[in-house]
């Protein structure tokens, strides 16, 4: 409108509030997980053994690294190093894609074994294993959707930075996208041990 209004701290705070809503969104699935785990500890371990721990670990490293690159990108824009910032954003997007490709292979292997929500094979494996895989697919699926959204967001931000719309003076959009990306990382930090490492 007519009067220029700017409040970077407010913008960041708004983003944090949005991240809270995301945490609660995932917490619904984590509640289901926790209750089911306490009910079927043995079955959950059995289900966990069938997940590929190597792919899971690689994806953890990929996400942690992408979190580093986007954090560095924020520092880069603050120090007005636009080229570095663009490279770091690019690396983040590539890592997001690597994560998704990994996930694709992981899921295809599992689905080819007849393990997917509502499958006959899963039903024969018993109630606990069934619950484990249902929750695994829905939680990881929702997380994957967030990786997709976060990656696209960072792609858009990179383009805006290249066009000079995001500068060292005004970079809240980059900062907020980075915050979203860190949240994706945070969710995975909990998701990984709970699904891949149950013994």
């Amino acid at each position, binding site marked *: 409108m007519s009067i220029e209004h700017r409040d970077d701290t407010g913008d960041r705070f708004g983003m944090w509030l949005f991240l809270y809503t995301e945490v609660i969104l995932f917490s619904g699935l984590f509640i289901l997980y926790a209750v089911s785990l306490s009910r079927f500890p043995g079955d959950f371990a059995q289900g966990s053994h069938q997940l590929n721990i190597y792919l899971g670990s690689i994806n953890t490293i990929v996400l942690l690294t992408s979190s580093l690159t986007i*954090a560095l990108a924020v520092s880069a824009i603050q120090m007005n190093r636009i080229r570095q910032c663009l490279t770091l954003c690019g690396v983040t997007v590539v890592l997001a894609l690597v994560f998704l490709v990994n996930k694709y292979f992981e899921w295809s292997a599992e689905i080819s074994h007849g393990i997917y929500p509502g499958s006959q094979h899963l039903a024969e494996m018993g109630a606990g294993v069934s619950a484990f895989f249902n929750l695994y697919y829905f939680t990881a699926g929702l997380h994957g959707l967030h990786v997709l959204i976060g990656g696209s967001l960072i792609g858009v931000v990179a383009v805006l930075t290249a066009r000079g719309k995001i500068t060292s003076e005004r970079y809240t959009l980059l900062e907020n996208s980075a915050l979203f990306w860190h949240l994706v990382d945070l969710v995975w930090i909990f998701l990984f041990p709970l699904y891949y490492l149950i013994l």
Partner: protein
Amino acid sequence: MSEHKHEPVPYRTFILIWIALLALTAITIAVSRVHLGPLNVWVALGVATLKSSLVLFFFMHLKQETRLFRLGLLVLLVILAIFIGMTFIDTLYR
């Protein structure tokens, strides 16, 4: 309304945090291969909490933000604890 800008965090700090995160990941994988009974889950959650605090305070700049941001996070965690805890009051005693 005070506009407070963050000092850029040096690359070094972030890289150190990243190394710490990778080390914690290695620890959590290693520990998970040792049978500790129900303790396994709690160790995994403990390490994950440590990792997420690193991400929150450094990567997400929470360390540099005003008290309001930390207060908000606290409110969120309290509410989360209530949602999870109160559900367990039912399921554990059924």
